[in-house]
């Protein structure tokens, strides 16, 4: 299947503007509500417990986009005689751009607004909790980018397979792993180790390499899914 650059660009653009606006809106509302909470605490001079950082909400843009693009936009693009291979490339550009932009925005907000709000309330930001900011700004950026990309392509792939019976089997399998592994100590350790590798990894280069490799592997699976997908 040959790719058409113009078509790939059009798909990336339409994915950024159509349907995914729901993600932007939800993220904005979430972020604003956090800022309002901090403002109220400041006005009434009542510093309390910690508060989750507003920029954590921005991840909703990525999460909702990765669900809505394959769930809603795929069919609409196909109904305009778009090509599956162009959809494949168009979407990965969406997730690369979104992951990069969110990494930058979240890091900038973390180093500016969050720091200034620390006097009012303790701000809990996932990039600090996960330890991604421990090795300098540049590595924090790349670690975020790698993980966000992995998150996006995983959600995209899981959404895309929901029209197949085996998609539901995979859902069931994932749910089973979590529910079976969690109560059994030995298996729970495997689960913890997995999350340590893809999220809490103390070695930034290892973390980046694992996330990017998994992202490439999972997304390449999409070629096979798209070929089988009915319209």
């Amino acid at each position, binding site marked *: 299947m040959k790719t058409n650059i113009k078509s790939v660009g059009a798909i990336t653009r339409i994915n950024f503007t159509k349907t995914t606006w729901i993600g932007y809106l939800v993220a904005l509302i979430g972020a604003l509500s956090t800022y309002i909470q901090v403002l109220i605490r400041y006005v009434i001079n009542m510093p309390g417990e910690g508060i989750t950082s507003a920029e954590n909400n921005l991840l909703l843009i990525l999460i909702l986009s990765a669900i809505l693009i394959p769930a809603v936009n795929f*069919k609409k693009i196909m*109904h305009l*005689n778009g090509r599956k291979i162009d959809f494949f490339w168009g979407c990965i550009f969406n997730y690369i751009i979104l992951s990069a932009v969110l990494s930058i925005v979240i890091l900038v907000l973390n180093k500016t607004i969050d720091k200034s709000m620390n006097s009012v309330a303790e701000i809990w930001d996932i990039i600090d909790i996960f330890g991604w900011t421990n090795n300098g700004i540049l590595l924090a950026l790349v670690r975020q980018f790698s993980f966000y990309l992995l998150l996006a392509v995983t959600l995209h792939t899981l959404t895309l397979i929901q029209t197949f019976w085996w998609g539901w089997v995979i859902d069931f399998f994932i749910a089973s792993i979590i529910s079976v592994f969690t109560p059994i100590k030995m298996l729970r350790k495997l689960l913890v180790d997995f999350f340590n590798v893809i999220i809490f990894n103390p070695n930034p280069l290892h973390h980046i390499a694992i996330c990017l490799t998994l992202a490439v592997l999972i997304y390449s699976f999409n070629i096979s899914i798209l070929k*089988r997908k009915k319209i």
Partner: protein
Amino acid sequence: MIKFSNVTKEYRNTIALDNINLELNENKIYCLLGRNGAGKTTFLKLIAGHINTTKGYVTVSNRLVSTFDMPESVNFIESRASQFNMPIGKLLNLAHSLNPDLDMDFAKDLMKKFKLDKNKKYKQLSFGMQTMFTTLLSLASRARVVILDEPVLGFDAIMRERFYEMLQYSFEYNPRIIIVSTHLIDEISRVAEDIIIIEEGSILLHSNMNDLDEKAYSLTGPTSEIKTAVKGLNVINEKTLGGYTTAYIFGDRITPASNIKLQSLGLQEFFVNIVGGGDIEDEN
């Protein structure tokens, strides 16, 4: 160009198409007729590679069609398919970006002709105008095969007239295989050259429209004489009322006795009788 070889399509326990064998090679406007649920849309989706066959195979230009390999030479936009809700001028540009082969001059010309306001959002258009727009996108494509599924759904009489003009104009401008699925039988007979009738998942008839004009007729007269007259003929249906019978025939014309009246059948009358009556042998 399009070949169905022993194609069966099943949806769970329902057989939508049953062992279809058919070839469409010439550049013509083909009219696809069938009652609701006869298997028309399944037939069209298989050509476009939107779905896979259960048994057998479909080829377009000698290439096997499947969801794995959707033929680029086929353009199929379902009339009821959901579209991005944006100004249709922008939707046209998007369609052009997705298919650089789209003939934009032709599309814009058609938009003007059919008074489609490019600034109106897709969902602001009436259902008929939405269908007109998607039909226009299909006709403006330079695909070798264009499939139109119920393209006149929701059209008033004037819009239908315009649509048939547009169809004729598009075919003359760019001759290719155009398959039109419709319920408005007599109207499409003015522009279509071939007719394909699907009934309960099988091809009941594939015939040239001129042959059909010649071969589809009715004989009306006293029941006993009609019974004698139709012996050996391909009777697709019979209706009896008060000692008089009308027999609907598909086949070579006869010269009837003086008290038997012979009348040509319109396409609609033929269709109603053939799908309401018995099977006939495929003349092609």
